[in-house]
C-alpha cells in the first residue's frame, strides 16, 4: 500500500512540475531578459547532466572509464563525427577499460 502511495505521489508530483510552466506561461513571449535566460537554460542544464552522469557515483566525485569514453566521444564530435559513431566508440572504449581493470 505504501509502495503504491509512493509511486502515485512521485508520478503526480513529476507531472505537476513538468506542466506548471506550460499551463501558466504557455504561448506568451516573455520580456527580453527572461528570453535571454531561457536561451541559456539548456546549455547550463545539459552541461550539468553531462558532468553528473560522467563524474559522479551517488554523491561521490569519481574519474573512471566513463571519463575516458566521454573524452574520446568529445574528440570525435569536435572533428564532426556523427553522434552515433561517437557514442559507439565511447561505449567500446569504456567497456574495454572496464574489462581491463
Amino acid at each position, binding site marked *: 500500500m505504501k509502495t503504491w502511495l509512493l509511486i502515485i505521489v512521485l508520478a503526480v508530483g513529476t507531472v505537476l512540475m513538468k506542466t506548471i510552466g506550460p499551463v501558466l506561461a504557455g504561448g506568451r513571449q516573455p520580456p527580453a531578459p527572461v528570453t*535571454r535566460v531561457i536561451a541559456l537554460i539548456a546549455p547550463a542544464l545539459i552541461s550539468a547532466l553531462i558532468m553528473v552522469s560522467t563524474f559522479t557515483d551517488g554523491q561521490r566525485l569519481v574519474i573512471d572509464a566513463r571519463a575516458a569514453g*566521454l573524452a574520446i566521444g568529445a574528440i570525435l564530435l569536435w572533428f564532426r563525427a556523427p553522434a552515433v559513431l561517437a557514442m559507439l566508440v565511447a561505449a567500446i572504449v569504456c567497456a574495454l577499460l572496464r574489462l581491463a581493470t
Partner: protein
Amino acid sequence: MRLTPKAWPPGLRASLPLLLPTAAIGVSFGILAAPVLGAIPSIVMSLIVWSGAAQFGALSILISGGGTTLAAGTGLLANTRFLPMGFAIAPSMTGGPLRRLLTGALLTDASLIIGHREGGRFDISALAWAAPAQSLGWVGGTAAGVLGATAIGEPTRWGIDVLFPVFYLSLLLPELFPGRLKGSERPRNSRPIIVAALGGAIALVLTPLAPPGVPVLAAVAAALIGLRAPRHQVARPATGDHA
C-alpha cells in the same frame, strides 16, 4: 505509406539512438527495484513516474533503510529541474491549456535537448515525438530487468552508461560552437560557453554536499547571467528571430 525512417517525425528519429541506452538503464532499475517494490509496482512506476532520476533517487533511499516519505521527497527533489525546464519551453508552445498540459507532461531531459533550437526556442513537435521511444525503452527495460534479464549481467558493465553524456554532448557542442559544428554565420557568442562551464562546475561542486537532484537544479542558476544585457551588442543577423 511506407514507414521508412525518413518519413518518421524528426523528433522520433532523433530519439532512436537513445532507445538502447534508455532500455539498459531501465534494466538496471528493474533488477534493483523488483526485490524492494515488487514486480508489478516497479513496472507501473516506470510507466507513470517515467523518470530515472526520481525513481533511482527514491529507490536508493528505500534500499538504505529510509522511509516512504523521505523516498518521495528525494524523488521529487531530483525532478525539481522540470520546473524551470517547463517555463523554458512554455513560450514556444501553442494551443489551449489542456494541449499544453498534455504536451508538457511529455517533457524529459532528452526531449528538451532534442527539441531545443537556437535562441531559446523549442520545436515542440520534435520534443513531443521524442517521448515514445524513451517511454518504450524505459518501461521495456524495467520489465526485462524485473523478469530477471540477469543473463547480460549489470548492463553498466558494457559501457552503455557512457552513451548518455556523449549523446548530450553531441547536442551541446553545436550550441556552444555554432561556427565550427553547424556552419552557422551567427555572430560569435561566448555566453553559452561560459554558462555551460559554470553550470557543469556548480553541479560537480554540489554533488558531495547536496541531496541527489539539487546539483543539477542549482546548475540552472548559471543561466541567470542572461539577465544582464550582452556587453557587446552586435548587430542582429537579418534572418534572426525577433526576440
